[in-house]
């Protein structure tokens, strides 16, 4: 009987590992679709940012209460993993509380901490569910945000409920286990004197006082299995969900932009053209490297100007898309969205991920060179959304994991303007004014200094 459980457990663990590895490879493949970009510079600064923003959750604390609540779930997640390690080893080896005899004095303290965190996580998840579905925090409501369709909202509900169930399983498992130990049933008796009652689950013991010994064993086993199978399914589910941020949040912050928020990235391939047009010495190759005059290298291939689809974006934009939590903090800060325009930076991120997942689905049926005739621009993100952006960087500032929705918007704008010549008419007028009059308005450049006549008035 024991050995069957062990075999089943190893099979479940192996299957989960195999499936997750497959998912990770697929997601990595999708991120690699993006254009190369070096984000390995300034490792010290990057590490510091990651420690502060990802580990330290710095930006979550802009709203203190929500920050604390999120921190409870986050700490619970990090630390309960220790307990999961024991559970996994027990599952493989057929042992029971493997670590207990070896670390006798601190074992109960550890479990007490886990239990406290479990109660914390449980409480916070209930509050979060209430915030979403009863108090109706505006940024999660479909009536206000069209990207909050059924799936993102269900996704959130599934995860929160799953966490609540996992915590209940964990606490009642400890309680039933303690009762079995007290009664000295089978191998449970071995921990008598080593493991005491735990901080929270001791109060749940009365729930089990009416159970027969067999009933108790059945409950204990079921709760144990539910807890660990729940965790394994959760791990798989996360790769499909907005909760991928619990893993990708860390690298995502590590590789985030270091330059000032207002700086728009240069296009070296254009620098070369402009230098030629102005009769200046050419200093950059299209790939951004210094020009060499040897002429022995073929010119780098110039792709599209700007981005039409996910392949034209940088890999970091794509990693951003997989990391997005869909929390909508960007959108609640966006002046365009606040005043009722169609633009929502959260939607930009969700669209990018949806488009990537559409391509992934294509890969599954047709292999990696699958192509379709859709694109991120137009099929997902419209000109109306793009044109509404004031480039104010509020979204970039608001994102708790340093995602940059603005970067994607600007690259799509470049494509529309430079490849499709499809700017709004008044922008075209502005362009030609700058070109002809050196100012965005139709004034004669020779009048530029006229203001000086009035300094002594």
């Amino acid at each position, binding site marked *: 009987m024991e050995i069957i459980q062990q075999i089943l457990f190893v099979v479940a663990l192996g299957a989960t590992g195999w499936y997750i590895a497959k998912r990770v490879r697929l997601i990595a493949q999708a991120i690699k679709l993006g254009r190369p970009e070096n984000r390995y510079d300034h490792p010290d600064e990057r590490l510091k940012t990651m420690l502060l923003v990802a580990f330290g959750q710095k930006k979550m604390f802009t709203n203190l209460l929500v920050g604390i609540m999120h921190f409870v779930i986050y700490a619970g997640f990090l630390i309960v993993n220790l307990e999961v390690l024991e559970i996994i080893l027990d599952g493989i080896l057929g042992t029971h509380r493997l670590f207990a005899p070896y670390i006798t004095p601190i074992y109960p303290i550890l479990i007490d901490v886990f239990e406290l965190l479990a109660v914390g996580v449980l409480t916070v998840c209930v509050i979060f569910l209430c915030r979403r579905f009863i108090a109706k925090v505006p940024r999660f409501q479909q009536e206000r945000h069209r990207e909050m369709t059924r799936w993102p909202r269900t996704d959130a509900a599934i995860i929160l409920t799953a966490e609540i169930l996992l915590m209940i399983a964990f606490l009642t498992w400890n309680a039933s286990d303690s009762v079995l130990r007290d009664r000295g049933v089978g191998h449970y008796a071995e921990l008598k004197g080593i493991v005491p009652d735990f901080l929270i689950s001791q109060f749940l013991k009365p729930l089990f006082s009416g159970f027969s010994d067999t009933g108790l064993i059945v409950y204990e086993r079921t709760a144990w299995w539910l807890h660990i199978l729940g965790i394994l399914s959760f791990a798989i589910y996360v790769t499909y969900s907005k909760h991928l941020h619990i893993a990708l949040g860390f690298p995502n912050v590590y590789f985030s932009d270091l330059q000032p928020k207002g700086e728009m990235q240069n296009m070296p391939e254009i620098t070369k053209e402009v230098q030629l*047009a102005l009769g200046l010495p050419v200093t950059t190759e299209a790939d951004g490297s210094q020009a060499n005059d040897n002429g022995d290298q073929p010119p780098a291939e110039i792709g599209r100007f700007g981005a039409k689809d996910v392949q034209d974006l940088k890999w970091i934009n794509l990693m951003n898309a997989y990391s997005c939590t869909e929390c909508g903090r960007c959108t609640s800060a966006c002046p365009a969205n*606040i005043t*009722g325009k169609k633009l929502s930076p959260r939607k930009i991120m969700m669209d990018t991920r949806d488009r990537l997942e559409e391509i992934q689905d294509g890969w599954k049926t047709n292999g990696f060179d699958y192509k379709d005739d859709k694109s991120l621009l137009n099929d997902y993100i419209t000109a109306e959304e793009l044109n509404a952006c004031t480039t104010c960087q509020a979204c970039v500032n608001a994102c708790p994991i340093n995602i940059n929705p603005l970067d994607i918007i600007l690259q799509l704008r*470049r494509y529309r303007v430079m490849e499709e010549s499809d700017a709004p008419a008044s922008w075209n007028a502005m362009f030609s004014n700058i070109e002809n009059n*050196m*100012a965005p308005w139709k004034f004669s450049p020779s009048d530029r200094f006229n203001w000086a006549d009035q*300094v002594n008035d």
Partner: protein
Amino acid sequence: MSTTEKTYKVPTMADMAASGEEPEILFWVGCAGSFDDRYKRVTIAFVRILNHVGIKFAVLGPEEACTGDPARRAGNEFLFQMQAMSNIQVLNGYNVKKIVTACPHCFNTLKNEYPELGGNYEVIHHSQFLQGLINEGRVKVKDGQPFKGRRITFHDSCYLGRANKVYEAPRDVLAALDADLVEMKRVRANGLCCGAGGGQYFKEPEPGKKDVNVERVEEALSTGADTIAVACPFCMTMMSDGVKNKNREDSVRVFDISELIAQGQGL
């Protein structure tokens, strides 16, 4: 103008070069500062302050051209780089080292985006420059000035604040006025855009519930301030239009921080 009054001078780089001189700073006026009737008054106020404190400065005058910021943000990278590289040629030709500008968009572009194209300068926003003058005691607002007890609120410009983290300089400048500085709900890193950046100024807004500047002005008015201080030409226009939209132009005025300082000094 009577002869006993001080006359303000605006030397150009070309004048300076012709007489073999080099100014301490180049004042980058910007397109709005050169052509927009309302914003020309800000340019003039700032030039008067520069004269008043006796700083050796110069402007490019007719040799200045748009930095290319609106073109770049609207997506026209070609046009941006054409502008940038011609400007850099002019600036490097005059051996410019230090630039002051009143426009946060020019400030951001010159400071952050020109270096990659070969233009390396120390770039300062006029709020930082004024802050320096105040700290050094070179600019003092006279006692008993009209600002005493007046409620002023400051609107953060995205390209000064979030883009470059300059939040305190304009506030320090306003503090020197001895006025009653009141903050809006969304300020500093959380400040709400005026609605003009990213090329929006040059086209109609997309359809929505209301215009961004109206939303922002409502917030400014709810502080009870009678003066909205700005530090950006686009914010200036957007806030002024918003005040008009709310029919409050008789009771609420929009000023650039340099105008307030110039007024405080009787310039």
